[in-house]
């Protein structure tokens, strides 16, 4: 299958990304490059210098809202897609509204309790919508510990499922982007599932 055909197919879908930090910004970039038609991003934070070790932003964007900066960066990569940005903190009430109509949702939060809240909300209030979770990406190395797991048709996990970030084991560009790109790759696999017979390895 040619990329032009893949891009045309992906242009008909809408993908939600909850969080525009290390996972969300890098995942959004991969989806924009692939031609996913509409990307809905949500994050209430502003860019700090410390974010630049892993998040897809630039020094000139420090102090900007992540959603505004990401929208700008995505439009520079692919002006043909629609980016809908919500500078809001997500909660159990607004998640089903903000991500209404999304074909797939990506969990891209930092804190474990936010991950839990999003998963519980999407899985109970938005039945049937596939959710791609990132869990376990701290530190460096151990590339072979990062894995992909399908729990069922609506829940997928990318990450090592064992490392937690802390002062001594910070999140860093390579491993965070590995997980973010696995999440993006899973989104595309789901959206391309009708063409799975084309896929030869």
């Amino acid at each position: 299958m040619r990329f032009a055909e893949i891009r045309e197919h992906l242009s008909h879908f809408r993908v939600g990304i909850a969080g525009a930090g290390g996972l969300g910004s890098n995942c959004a970039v991969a989806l924009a490059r692939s031609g996913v038609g509409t990307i809905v991003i949500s994050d209430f934070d502003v860019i700090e210098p410390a974010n630049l070790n892993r998040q897809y932003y630039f020094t000139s964007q420090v102090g900007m809202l992540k959603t505004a900066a990401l929208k700008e960066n995505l439009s520079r990569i692919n002006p043909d897609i629609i980016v809908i940005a919500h500078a809001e903190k997500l909660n159990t009430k607004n998640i089903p509204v903000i991500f209404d109509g999304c074909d797939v949702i990506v969990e891209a939060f930092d804190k474990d309790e936010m991950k839990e809240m999003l998963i519980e909300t999407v899985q109970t209030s938005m039945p049937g919508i596939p959710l791609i979770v990132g869990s376990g990406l701290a530190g460096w190395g151990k590339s072979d510990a990062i894995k992909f797991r399908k729990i069922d048709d609506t829940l997928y996990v990318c990450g090592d499922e064992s490392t937690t970030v802390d002062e001594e084991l910070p999140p860093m560009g390579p491993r965070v982007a590995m997980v973010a790109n696995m999440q993006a790759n899973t989104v595309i696999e789901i959206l391309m599932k009708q063409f799975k017979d084309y896929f030869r390895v």
Partner: protein
Amino acid sequence: MTIILNNRPEVFDVEHLSVSRMLELKRFTFRMRIIKINGVLVPKDRYDSTSIMEGDNVQMLYLMSGG
């Protein structure tokens, strides 16, 4: 009873098994997790009241901070 826990058979020598009891018996102490039984998510506040039955497919996912 035998259940499927993360795709592997697990035998529990009990008649009744709640989600909380299963976590105790397995000594799963890590708090941040998602549990699904036969594809249905069990909210944390129902771990005591939700029973796991013979043959149930239980999936557990640990949530690690970082993103």
